[in-house]
């Protein structure tokens, strides 16, 4: 520690270049190895048997026939996953989600698993496992789950955050309140009050690569795990805890990751693969099918939200409140709390109050999905903001500018903001030519804002300089969207060498200290910070080596333009030593040259975006097409602009899918009706226009280069931006996401009829 993370304005040589990514060739040739691309000698095929019921007591699991089938090497149930959590309920939830313990809590909940010599035998073995279920009442809707007579999903859950402490278990696991001021007084002061309720359906991250791993436990208690993950160190720690393995004895290697978006921050079946391998004493490959991914990994919440905003005639918001009910699946979590924190983060409010309700239902355990919880809250708030602007007769952008948060504003979630980008993104929207483009019949334009916290976290980075002067940069954060390129640019910048001389790679858990997940938009932010300090560390070493080579005091050496320079008149005859020259002599001057840094890279710098969207609605079918889209977002500093734009575009596309077509559809029996890409409709190439981007750079004061996380915020505004555009196109305000054609047509009919 002790590294100065303060922002300093500087000219960049490498940072900001649109260089080729180091993993590019591997990925365009099919050589890159993802989760399912590893093979081990003697490997078995693992398969998981899953509950067909939304909620059921498991009375009996008879595995005897499956065990007897030739070619079957292991069959496991929860008996093989004893509780080693020591009373840690959060860990127990993870374990129970990996394998049901007496009760199946959702359609797709794992109840048993097999490992066999091939797929055909493994499939046959699954069919031979006989599970006796007793069906229990279920609930999948968030509002229904809160009703007094709703089936109780988990009997150990008592509502927290209420006084007096409840005596009966409830599906509401927590109630969290945020805000400041006096909203009642604020509403009393208002000239206009707008209130509206909203619903959003459950969506999935929809990464194209299913969960996959290759587990290899040895009889000596050590093991290896190859896995697609957003955080292999965290996976190692979780699996070690759940299975009683020493952390040092479980080596986890992260494969290339085929998309995560938060969904690969949790273990879902990796502990099961390890247990199968331990029992079979052979390597086991476990790969989810697509329907397993939908049913048994972690989608995001469905929600039900009430929003109330009051304003003066001049457009000043006097009070704002929201009740946000978030469904977390079958295990407690605090996604509703986060929704309550983010809801009004864009605005400077005197009186604000939000209450988040976290609710259990018989659906899969919810995981993070890109700026988790924020898009739904923003849908409610930003839709209501447009309604209010309409009532006040104000331009929606001007209305937002008038109320936008700025440096010194107390955020609705508590602290006071430093320099932030909401105002500048709104000003950029106002100036953008998109706002003045002509619209045709049945077309409409909408805009909306979004916020996300961004995180840092534990990070550890190594930088080794080879005798030829090239640099291997070893990081522990998973590269989801091109961070190896960005981090190489940063190392090159610090060392004063060309990007091409740096090669970044992701280390396994045995080769580097702990790194937190790549989540919260932290990959480039935090590993970037550690890379800067590791490089500066290496520079100090090289200055020492140069001093030795010159035989002068190290105090007389400075680092400039990728090399050491001797300062002072006494040394004016010494020509500078390049990094390459110093590296070449390293065996004689003290051995290998390395830089190292470990840090908790907190302070990732909050991020804001404003989006503009044009849609065309077919009033006879309710079909909506996005015809133009613009993202304006603050990146702090764009290290590799291509991949910053890529994050903006990808988030917007996911938001567009969420807004229009994506949803988990549950039947009356509580089973998922659409666990596949055919009926879970993510946007296809022909659904979208080019997505224009404008990168703003308002430096994060707590990063040497001013970097803010950029990965998540772009998914926050689209839901409301599209809702506002639809409203402006055909005059109906949709309060239920997705705005699918039947919902839009129904709204149009109701408008015509009433």
């Amino acid at each position: 520690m002790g590294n100065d993370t303060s922002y300093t304005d500087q000219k960049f040589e490498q940072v900001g270049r649109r260089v080729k990514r180091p993993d590019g060739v591997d990925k365009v040739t099919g050589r890159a190895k993802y989760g399912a691309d590893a093979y081990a000698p003697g490997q078995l095929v693992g398969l998981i048997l899953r509950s067909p019921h939304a909620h059921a007591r498991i009375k009996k699991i008879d595995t005897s026939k499956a065990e007897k089938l030739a070619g079957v090497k292991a069959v496991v149930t929860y008996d093989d996953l004893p509780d080693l959590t020591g009373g840690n309920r959060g860990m127990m939830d993870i374990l129970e989600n990996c394998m049901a313990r007496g009760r199946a809590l959702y359609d797709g909940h794992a109840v048993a698993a097999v490992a066999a010599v091939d797929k055909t035998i493994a499939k046959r073995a699954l069919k031979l496992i006989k599970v006796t279920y007793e069906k229990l009442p279920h609930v999948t809707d968030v509002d229904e789950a809160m009703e007094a007579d709703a089936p109780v999903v988990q009997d150990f859950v008592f509502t927290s955050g209420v006084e007096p402490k409840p005596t009966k278990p409830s599906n509401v696991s927590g109630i969290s309140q945020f805000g400041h001021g006096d909203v009642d007084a604020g509403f009393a002061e208002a000239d206009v009050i707008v209130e509206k309720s909203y619903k959003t359906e459950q969506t999935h991250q929809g990464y194209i690569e299913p969960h996959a791993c290759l587990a290899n436990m040895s009889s000596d208690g050590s093991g290896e795990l190859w896995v697609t993950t957003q955080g292999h160190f965290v996976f190692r720690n979780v699996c070690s805890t759940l299975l009683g393995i020493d952390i040092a004895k479980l080596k986890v290697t992260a494969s290339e990751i085929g998309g995560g978006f938060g969904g690969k921050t949790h273990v879902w079946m990796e502990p099961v693969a390890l247990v199968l391998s331990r029992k079979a004493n052979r390597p086991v490959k476990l790969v989810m099918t697509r329907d397993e991914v939908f049913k048994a990994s972690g989608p995001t919440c469905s929600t039900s939200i009430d929003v109330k905003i009051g304003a003066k005639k001049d457009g000043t918001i006097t009070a704002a409140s929201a009740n946000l009910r978030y469904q977390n699946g079958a295990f407690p979590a605090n996604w509703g709390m986060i929704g309550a924190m983010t809801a009004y983060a864009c605005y400077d409010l005197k009186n604000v109050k939000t209450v988040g309700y976290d609710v259990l239902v018989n659906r899969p355990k919810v995981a993070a999905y890109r700026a988790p919880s924020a898009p739904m809250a923003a849908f409610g708030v930003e839709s209501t903001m447009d309604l209010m602007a309409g009532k006040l007769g104000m331009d929606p952008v001007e209305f937002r500018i008038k109320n936008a948060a700025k440096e010194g504003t107390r955020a609705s979630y508590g602290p006071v903001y430093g320099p932030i980008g909401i105002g500048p993104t709104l000003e950029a929207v106002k100036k953008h030519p998109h706002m003045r483009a002509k619209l045709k019949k049945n077309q409409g334009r909408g805009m909306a804002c979004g916020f996300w916290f961004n995180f840092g976290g534990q990070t550890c980075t190594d930088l080794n300089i080879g005798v030829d002067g090239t640099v291997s940069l070893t990081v522990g954060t998973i590269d989801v969207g091109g961070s190896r390129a960005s981090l190489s640019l940063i190392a090159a910048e610090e060392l004063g060498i060309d990007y091409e001389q740096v090669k970044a790679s992701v280390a396994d858990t045995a080769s580097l200290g702990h790194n937190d997940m790549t989540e919260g938009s932290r990959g480039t932010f935090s590993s970037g910070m550690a890379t800067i300090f590791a490089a500066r560390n290496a520079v100090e070493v090289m200055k020492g080596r140069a001093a030795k080579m010159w035989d002068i005091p190290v105090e007389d050496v400075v680092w400039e333009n990728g090399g050491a320079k001797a300062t002072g008149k006494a040394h004016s005859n010494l020509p500078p030593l390049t990094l390459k020259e110093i590296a070449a002599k390293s065996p004689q001057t003290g051995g290998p040259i390395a830089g190292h840094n470990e840090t908790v890279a907190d302070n990732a710098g909050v991020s804001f975006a404003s989006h503009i969207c044009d849609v065309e609605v077919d009033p006879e079918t309710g079909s909506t097409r996005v015809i133009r889209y613009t993202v304006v977002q603050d990146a702090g500093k764009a290290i590799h602009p291509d991949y910053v734009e890529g994050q903006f575009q990808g988030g917007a596309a996911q938001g567009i899918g969420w807004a229009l077509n994506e949803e988990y559809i549950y039947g009356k029996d509580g089973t998922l009706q659409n666990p596949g890409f055919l009926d879970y409709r993510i946007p296809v190439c022909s659904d979208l226009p080019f997505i224009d981007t404008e990168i703003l750079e308002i430096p994060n004061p707590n990063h040497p280069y001013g970097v803010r996380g950029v990965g998540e915020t772009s998914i926050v505004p689209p839901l409301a931006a599209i809702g506002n555009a639809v409203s402006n196109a055909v005059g109906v305000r949709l309060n239920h996401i997705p705005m699918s054609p039947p919902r839009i047509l129904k709204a149009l009919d109701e408008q015509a009829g009433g």
Partner: protein
Amino acid sequence: MRYEAPKTTKEAATFLKKEKGDAFILAGGTDLLVKMKLGISAPDLVVDIKKIPAMNAINHNASGSKIGAAVSGAELGEHKGLSKSWPGVVEATNLIGSDQVQSRATMVGNLCNASPAADSVPAMIAAGAKAIVVGSTKRRTVPVEKVVTGPGQTSLADDEVIEAITLPKRGKRAGDAYLRFIPRTEMDIAVVSAGVNLTLERGVVKTARICLGAVAPTAILVPAAAKAIIGTKLDDEALDKLAAACSAACNPIDDKRGTIEYRVRVAGVLAKRAAKIAFQRAGGA
């Protein structure tokens, strides 16, 4: 499971007849392999018909057209003569799935999968297409609307295979069209669809066949809708009547793809739009 790839249709029918377990015909496989993957089907025998010459041919001449059961959507779309005579049928078939699926999917496979939402079927029925059915002992010709009896059900006997689809002779003042509604622009199953085929005489609709998809257990012909436009120049009044007749004929379900209300309403909208296209293609003003 066994895999067989016979060289004649008769041979294929004989394989089917002899099989005691579950036997399936494999043409493009775009439905069968999905069902196998999802565990809905576990065939004991799969009979690949793509090695049968008669199944791979397209014959198109003045007396009519014949399209082999193994002809893929892509091959159909590349046939200029067919695309000119029956643009509605060809477009409907070409709407099934992606380019990847088009390389494999066939009209007959689409028909025999017996989904109420099959894209090519309403267009074929509107066109008056017939299926040439070959059994282990006899051949017969059946109107396409008689093939599917319900979701996943056909009138074919266990040993029968459809060898080809025939389309009637095409006159000059004739046009067909097919439209479907899907939430995305591609890759979806029809929520509701309409096929229209009509002929004109002196600018007036002389004959018409209108068929709807995804609004009943099978694709349905709607004679009342045809009646609404026969004898008209497809004026707004006729179109409104057509739409009303179509909506009235619907007997849909609520499911993950759409609501009853929605399907009933949009069936009329699509039929209207398809009729306008068919009318224009027939040379109507």
